[in-house]
């Protein structure tokens, strides 16, 4: 334990190494265990699109509520739905949905007032996400989806710059 005038620094009393380490002291992961985990993830893949559909539905519902009543609370719900998709869509094999969702999350996070709410731009993001999923565009280099994503990102930058003036 190290003690100085300003901070007390010490090792936690509980050792996971002692609990989980093998009898021979090795801390390696068995390659078969790794393979088993990869297979388990692979077996889930057929569910990814359905999971994503539910997350997209949640986003659309959040947008519907926000469009009727653009309050800070409803903006927060929409931001979290977009942020969820930003984080999860790539795991669920739709990286361009993640990109568009990131752009939407940036817009929702960056707006300080919803008095002059850029609803059409928010709607365009929600629609783009739905279309990419409906058309099953998983390829990150899909030209049409890329152009769409870039256009939306550009408009978000302009909108946020204008809002901050």
């Amino acid at each position, binding site marked *: 334990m190290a003690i100085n005038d*300003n901070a*007390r*620094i*010490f090792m*936690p009393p509980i050792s996971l190494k002692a609990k989980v380490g093998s009898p021979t002291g090795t*801390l390696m992961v068995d390659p078969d*265990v790794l393979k*088993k985990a990869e*297979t388990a993830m692979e077996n889930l893949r057929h569910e990814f699109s359905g999971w994503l559909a539910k997350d997209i539905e949640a986003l659309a519902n959040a947008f519907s509520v926000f469009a009727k009543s653009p309050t800070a609370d409803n903006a927060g719900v929409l931001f979290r739905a977009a942020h969820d998709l930003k984080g*999860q869509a790539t795991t669920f094999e739709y990286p361009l949905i993640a990109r568009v969702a990131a752009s939407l999350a940036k817009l929702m996070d960056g707006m300080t007032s919803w008095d002059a709410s850029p609803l059409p731009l928010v709607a365009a993001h929600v629609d783009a996400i739905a279309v990419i999923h409906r058309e099953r565009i998983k390829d990150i280099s899909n030209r049409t989806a890329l152009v769409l994503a870039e256009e939306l990102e550009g408009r978000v930058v302009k909108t946020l710059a204008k809002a901050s003036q």
Partner: protein
Amino acid sequence: MDGLRFDKLRVLVVDDNQHMRKLIITVLQAVGVRDLFEAPDGEHAWKTLRETNPDIIILDWQMDGMTGLEFASLIRNSPRSPNVYVPIIMLTGHTHLDHVRQARDAGVNEFLAKPVSVKAILSRLINVIEHPRQFVRTKTYFGPCRRRRAVAAYTGPERRTEFTLVD
């Protein structure tokens, strides 16, 4: 090969997205973790934590109600916390340096950035097992040491230059 005994681990997964919970839990089950607990928000997680006392917590940042950061801070600082030292792996879509700092200041041990992969999950688990971090107690912070390694020429803020509450 005689590897890590994941079957001895107790892990709590906290995420408001049921699909992400299922994915993480599926991977943990596949590597042999048997004692798995899950919670959809901070309130349920707190109850589960007190009932099960897990070895490791995998925690989403962005949740309705109590955020992951608030939950991490509660674990580290509440007198009712069953284990203030429990390793916390923060699952997040936030990757900016500011967010990393915020998580560290809340007492988080490791970051697991989305998108997640099997290798990333295992790597974070192994890190908290194999490289336990020292803990620091100052007047304003209690949690894992926020300096990953000793840097002789450290030029950052000296947050430890405070009066200390030494037990």
